[in-house]
């Protein structure tokens, strides 16, 4: 089956006062129809910038430096703004981290949903309103006819995120990018929003790119996971492969934060140190200085992606045939993580 979205050798940079910050460096991946792909990585690893570049809604000083993005075979990076506007919301849509600020505070939520509908579809105001009320219902807002007229400040954070989701799926996009949609919410609400996203994914068959730095969040949602570090992909694989057969020390670090993981290695309970400065990214493996298992080669030569299985690969010299064999320190107490 063909890929819905295909990203090839994408480089994204941000011009800052100190120089060009290489936020995304040589990233390639693909997304199939109906697939949920999770992007993992700690703060500052370039997850949001990567996703914003897909929609070309980068900050003013950001730009796609190189690479191609194909949506159903159509190249996006060279499209004029006007054609891009036809894709945003209609083909690819996005929800964000902070539901408190993402809605326009002085426009009734109903109108904000209607606007999304009317931007891409020719229909009367009345039909659009009906559709918006249906959408509110779909995302689990009670009394949608009344709520339609209310302003964002009259909703709680979880409900605002639901409304943002309603806006994002208003035109049944093929791809939904969810940029840490639950991070700002408290735990019980997180669960609900995740359930909602899963439900919509099944109902509409939307492909989802789900960003998070919490592995536990995506365990049940994603079919495939990529792990990002300092603007690069360091490991990609199916959810099972990442959970039970992770190869990259950075992935081990992320896994060790899960409650179900017995970590026999103290170093991994958190990842020490700071991510590198991306204005002058280091030679060699960017993770090496923080990596207890780093080899000498890591400091001067960048590891390629080593293929482990057809779907699983990781960028670490530990996978080289001459490297010392290191046992993964990650042991699951019990298999509760993946249902």
């Amino acid at each position, binding site marked *: 089956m063909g890929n819905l979205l295909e990203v090839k050798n994408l480089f994204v940079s941000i011009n800052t006062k100190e120089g060009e910050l290489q936020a995304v460096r040589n990233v390639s991946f693909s997304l199939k129809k109906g697939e949920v792909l999770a992007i993992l990585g700690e703060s500052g690893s370039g997850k949001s910038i990567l996703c914003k570049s897909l*929609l070309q*809604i980068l900050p*003013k000083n950001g730009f796609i430096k190189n690479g191609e993005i194909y949506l159903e075979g159509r190249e996006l990076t060279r499209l004029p*703004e*006007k054609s891009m*506007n*036809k*894709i*945003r*919301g*209609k083909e690819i*849509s*996005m929800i*964000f981290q*902070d539901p408190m*600020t*993402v*809605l*326009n*505070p*002085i*426009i009734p939520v109903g109108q904000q949903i209607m*606007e*999304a509908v009317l*931007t*891409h579809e020719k229909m009367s105001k009345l039909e659009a309103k009906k559709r918006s009320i249906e959408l509110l219902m779909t995302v689990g807002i*009670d*009394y949608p006819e*009344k*709520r339609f007229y209310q*302003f964002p*400040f*009259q*909703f*709680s954070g979880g*409900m605002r995120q639901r409304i*943002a989701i309603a*806006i*994002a799926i*208003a035109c049944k996009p093929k791809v939904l990018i969810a940029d840490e949609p639950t991070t700002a919410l408290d735990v019980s609400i997180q669960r609900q929003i995740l359930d909602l996203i899963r439900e919509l994914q099944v109902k509409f068959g939307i492909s989802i790119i789900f960003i998070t730095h919490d592995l536990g969040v995506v365990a049940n949602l994603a079919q495939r996971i990529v792990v990002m570090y300092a603007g690069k992909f360091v490991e990609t694989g199916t959810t099972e492969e990442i959970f039970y057969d992770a190869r990259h020390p950075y992935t081990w670090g992320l896994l060790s934060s899960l409650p179900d993981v017995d970590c026999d290695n103290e170093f991994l309970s958190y990842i020490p140190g700071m991510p590198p400065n991306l204005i002058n990214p280091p030679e060699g493996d960017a993770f090496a200085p923080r990596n207890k298992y780093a080899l000498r080669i890591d400091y001067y030569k960048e590891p390629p992606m080593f293929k482990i299985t057809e779907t699983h690969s990781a960028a670490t010299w530990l996978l080289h045939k001459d490297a010392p064999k290191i046992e993964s320190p990650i042991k699951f107490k019990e298999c509760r993580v993946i249902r």
Partner: protein
Amino acid sequence: MVDKIIGISKKVIQLIFVTFLLSIIVFYMARLAPGDPLVSYFGEGVERMGTAQKLEAIEKLGLNRPIYEQYFSWLSNAFHGKFGISYKYKQDVLSVIKDVYINTIILGGLSFVLTFLFALLLGIFCAENEDKLIDKAICKIGTITTCVPAFWVSLLLILIFSINLGLLPSSGAYAIGQSKSIASRIKHLILPLTVLILNHLWYYAYMIRNKMVEEMRQDYVLLCKVKGLDKKRIIYKHCLRNIMPSYITIMALSVPHILGGTYVVEKVFSYPGLGTLCFESAKYHDYNMLMVLCLITGILVVIANMAAQAINERIDPRMKHDRGEKDWNNNTAPGTLK
């Protein structure tokens, strides 16, 4: 409804109180300032008056009594609608004002509306082109214009357009005997209006530009982009509405600013209006005139501020709720509303 009436009566009481306070301050300040009020009444004649004559005149005008007594008699007269006569014009103050106030309203009103309209358009234009060459150029030029004093621009314009080119009149509100002629009025308005607008435009345009630039970095703009809205629509439909409340507040708060500018420009262009009157009355210690002009100006400023608040409440739904209407979240059943 009851809320509304209480709200309005509160404002009226506030207005009365402020007016009262203002009247006391102006009354005292005017009388404590050095100078001789008789000059405005008798003109040059004062110099030829003897001491006895002067005392007599002062007594006749009631200026020999303690200030607080003078004030109370002024106040009781004012309650009866009598604001006294202008020493200079030897006429009832109100009738002097009645003849010219419309000129100030025309000049001040037009400059107010046009300044804020142009500032809005210019500010948005700059924000749209943020950091592009055109924006940078406008910012530079704008900064320069705010440094140039109004009277200097006035003189320059008079020199060019009135004296050298002879295209436009340099003074007055209309050609003699043509107070009804719109064409004549417009001709007389062009120069003072230009000065006023140039003088204030960039100050407000820059404010709008920066507010808009900041607004365009808000999270909700990102969601608007994701929806597929184009930039123009995001700016006009979303961002503009969000900055409007603060702009309107600024507009209202700037009434004294613009009014002050109008007064100065009136003076430079000898435009017969409240500003020119104000200058004269202050210069000649025309107490009664000064009093009424200050009160009018003060009341205008207070009303403008109140209007700003009222308009803001209509635009921004949150403000109304801050005043005590109950905020409610998902835990309250919406069915109980209304």
